[in-house]
């Protein structure tokens, strides 16, 4: 794949008619719920009763190329994060296919961390969960602690994470997640939290990661940061791809739609 003529666009992510459906147990209440639950267990296959289906993404297709920074916009619950998870291969599509070059990774490590453990152990645990080796973690350990700034107010890294303020917890989580380099990187911008000083630092780090990654997907509700970063935008609404094009064009329509 290396000997491409200059100017040729190399695809890194291909999504073909992707549908994603969540199944929610116990969302139906009232009479007959117990029997419905029983029949759900007894009757395998076919149309399941008592299970609500949420069709989160409906038939999205696009091709992303190397070097592109793609923004995902849309109102809350439009399927942006779900689509990212499907691209990362973490959530299998109901139908359709996603092809990728290498392993896309979601920036975020929250789920692997444990509030009852010290910051120190969480850094190691989070790093291992992301697939870093023990040596890599040891190398980056100090960097992570310094970046998070949790030790600025005393020796907090040796205390359990539940003793941190929510801002400190968010900072440590982001610092661990951002310690690894990625090929195809996906960022949910709700990540960059904390006080103004830390937000600035984390935005800088995201920019750095973007520079190293081949293709970047950014979910954001801030049109400004989409304009700053992305050259192409996918607009999702109710799980459908409503528009796909250059940033300015799509954002103009989106702003008209959302009444700004």
């Amino acid at each position, binding site marked *: 794949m290396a000997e491409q003529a200059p100017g040729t666009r190399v*695809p890194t992510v291909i999504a073909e008619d992707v549908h994603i459906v969540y199944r929610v147990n116990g969302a139906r209440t009232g009479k007959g719920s117990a029997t419905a639950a029983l029949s759900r267990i007894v009757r395998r296959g076919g149309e399941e009763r008592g299970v609500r289906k949420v069709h989160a993404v409906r038939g999205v297709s696009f*091709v992303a190329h190397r070097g592109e920074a793609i923004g995902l916009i849309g109102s809350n619950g439009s399927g942006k994060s779900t689509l990212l998870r499907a691209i990362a291969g*973490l959530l299998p599509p109901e139908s359709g296919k996603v092809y990728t070059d290498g392993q896309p990774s979601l920036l975020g490590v929250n789920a692997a961390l444990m509030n009852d453990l010290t910051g120190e152990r969480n850094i190691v645990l989070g790093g*291992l969960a992301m*697939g870093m080796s023990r040596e890599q973690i040891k190398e980056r350990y100090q960097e992570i602690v310094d970046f998070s700034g949790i030790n600025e107010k005393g020796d907090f890294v040796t205390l359990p994470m539940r003793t941190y303020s929510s801002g400190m917890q968010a900072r440590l989580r982001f610092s661990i997640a951002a310690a690894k380099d990625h090929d195809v990187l996906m960022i949910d911008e709700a990540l960059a939290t904390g006080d103004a000083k830390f937000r600035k630092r984390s935005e800088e780090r995201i920019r750095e990661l973007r520079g190293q990654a081949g293709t970047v997907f950014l979910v954001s509700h801030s049109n400004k940061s989409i304009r700053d970063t992305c050259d192409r935008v996918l607009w999702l609404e109710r799980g459908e791809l409503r528009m796909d094009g250059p940033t300015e064009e799509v954002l103009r329509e989106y702003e008209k739609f959302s009444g700004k």
Partner: protein
Amino acid sequence: MSAPPSPDEGLTAAQLAAKYGLAVSGARPPLREYVGRLWGRRHFILAFSQAKLTAQYSQAKLGQLWQVATPLLNAAVYFMIFGVILNASRGMEKEVYIPFLVTGVFVFTFTQSSVMSGVRAISGNLGLVRALHFPRAALPISFALQQLQQLLYSMIVLFLVVIGFGSYPDASWILIVPALVLQFCFNTGLALVFARAGAKTPDLAQLMPFVMRTWMYASGVMFSIPVFLADKPQWMANVLQWNPAAIYMDLVRFALIDEYGSENLPQHVWAVAGGWAALFAIGGFVYFWQAEERYGRG
């Protein structure tokens, strides 16, 4: 095949993907590669199990002391009910029965808690499964490993009890190592099976305690199977004695308790113990791997 200006025009997604060497995202790797990836994550598996173990008692005042105190209290309860009140020893002397009972409780608890944590390994960690890439088998294996470490703490209590009732350490104690290794393999396989089942049907978490309790009472944790089933047909005793839980319990009892001789063990006991371990470890692993790409769906 295609004209120079836009060489990729008209290709289907699959053809385009093939042309540039793209692979289906989240596809299940072949078994051999899967094992390799799992091996690559061994540090994570170990760290995760230790973290879970530590986090368990981190809010308690006595802290990690509960690792030992919990099994001790457990043993005391069973001793009160079955040793003192119900007197289930039936012909066994106290010096044998108490270590017999405590060994049974601890060894069975090892399997029981592996199964219970296996059921929730995927369904209880869906957030993790939907956020990070790693072979999903890492979760149930890690939980089984946590139970193994828990058992090692219980072993401290067990040794004290056994020595307290007059069986002193000797060469036969070495045998608990292979016995527990085999049981660990068996437990891990079982945890893998139930992790897949529990991912599809989370209701198993409610059902399994009853299944496990039935299994415990049928495995001779607090009574000797040959003695209690003496007046029943021989095949019943055989079935109960060859069930994996009973096999591993008997092996550890045989290793630790002086008075509990090989006459209490069924025939070919080591072969059966190894067979169960291999069957479940390999079968459970393959069974779990077959649904690898679907665990994120929940």
